[in-house]
């Protein structure tokens, strides 16, 4: 994926393509989607680790629907029949899901937090939402580390493990919320001291962004047209 495409265009393009893929219903389109997913995986150089959960979920759909839907048996898992109609419906869902996951990864997976926040700002979302996104991205790692240190401190003081630790976890969460509130007060002062509230100019749409978006819309239209035709 060329790095020159701005985050705003990437977010819009992922939405357009994801919805187009969701709209595909015809079995004949499965190879087209698979091709698209393959291209996205190749372009995005996606790490396999990230796809473990979606692949497991996709398999569950294939199996679950294959076991429970339809009446033409294609094969038997021991005494249990697998039905063609169910397998087909499951495969449809699985391929759509995995294609979208691959596309989203290729377009958005490598964006930095800053780029993500800029992309949302470029979409003219309410400032409350974009600022909240930015702050969450900034402090997420910090808070995760704090929670991990608190958990360690608890264990070092002979804290219980397993379900008996549940009330202690609630205590840690409460302490963390109190800290978050205190930090928010200092943060608000720091933000205002540096002129928070001034409006940020949003860049106009450039040719590159327009071209990328046009390409995404064309792909989406082609997908839907092919699906209707098939």
């Amino acid at each position, binding site marked *: 994926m060329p790095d020159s495409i701005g985050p705003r265009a990437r977010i819009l393009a992922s939405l357009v393509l994801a919805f187009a893929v969701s709209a595909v219903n015809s079995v004949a389109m499965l190879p087209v989607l698979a091709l698209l997913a393959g291209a996205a995986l190749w372009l995005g150089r996606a790490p396999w680790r990230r796809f473990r959960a979606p692949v497991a979920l996709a398999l569950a759909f294939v199996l679950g629907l294959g076991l429970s839907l339809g009446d033409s048996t294609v094969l038997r898992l021991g005494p249990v029949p697998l039905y063609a109609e169910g397998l087909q419906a499951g495969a449809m869902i699985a391929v759509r899901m995995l294609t979208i996951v691959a596309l989203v990864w290729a377009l958005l997976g490598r964006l930095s937090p800053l780029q993500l926040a800029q992309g949302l700002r470029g979409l003219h979302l309410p400032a*409350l939402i974009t600022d909240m996104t930015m702050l969450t991205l900034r402090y997420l790692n910090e808070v995760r580390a704090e929670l991990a240190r608190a958990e360690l401190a608890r264990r070092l003081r002979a804290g219980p493990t397993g379900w008996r630790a549940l009330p202690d976890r609630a205590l840690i969460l409460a302490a963390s919320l*109190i800290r978050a509130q205190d930090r928010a007060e200092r943060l608000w002062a720091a933000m205002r001291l540096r002129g928070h509230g001034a409006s940020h100019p949003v860049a106009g749409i450039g040719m590159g962004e327009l071209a990328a978006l046009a390409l995404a819309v064309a792909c989406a239209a082609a997908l839907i047209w092919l699906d209707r035709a098939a």
Partner: protein
Amino acid sequence: MHLADGIVPVGMALAGYGASAGLTALALSRINRLPDPGAGLPRAAMLVTVFFAASLIAIPVPPASVHLMLAGLMGICLGWYAMPAILVGLFLQAVMFGHGGLTTLGLNGLIFGLPALAAYGLWARMGQRWPDLAAALAGGGAVLLALGLFAALVLLGLPPQLDAGAERLALAALVLAHLPLVLAEAVIVVVLLRVLRRVEPRLLAHA
């Protein structure tokens, strides 16, 4: 309990976006009526970060481990801010961690947002008089409500010719699998709100 991409029909996903956008617009208009809406931003953002970070930690609840959802608690601590906060969290989860989906962002926003707002309403009505009961209901009830919404949306979205018996079985399995989470969240919310009421009631006053 996130709806993934590709499961539900496009029409439903778009309707989800519409409903979530409407709910968020309502939330934003309520927020703008507050005396100092800007000051609520860093507060909401910091609390969301804690909720988000906490939901990434797996908690061992035999026989497996669960991720906390914390929708009820978010509603109680954030009030109307919970709705935009949940959308932000879901968007980041979909993009950064591959949980949930992009087309289903709107639907997931409803699955988590409606229980959060319900918990907020419940706490506002009952929190003063029966705090522990309200906390348990808000904590566990939010999980149950989210579970119900999730199941309803999945069933609506799946092929209509699906066997009714199998549907009921899958639904029962889903609820059973999440019962530990319902209990865990009820316990966590009760303990946590007891602490906050004792030492930092300001955290609850905003809701």
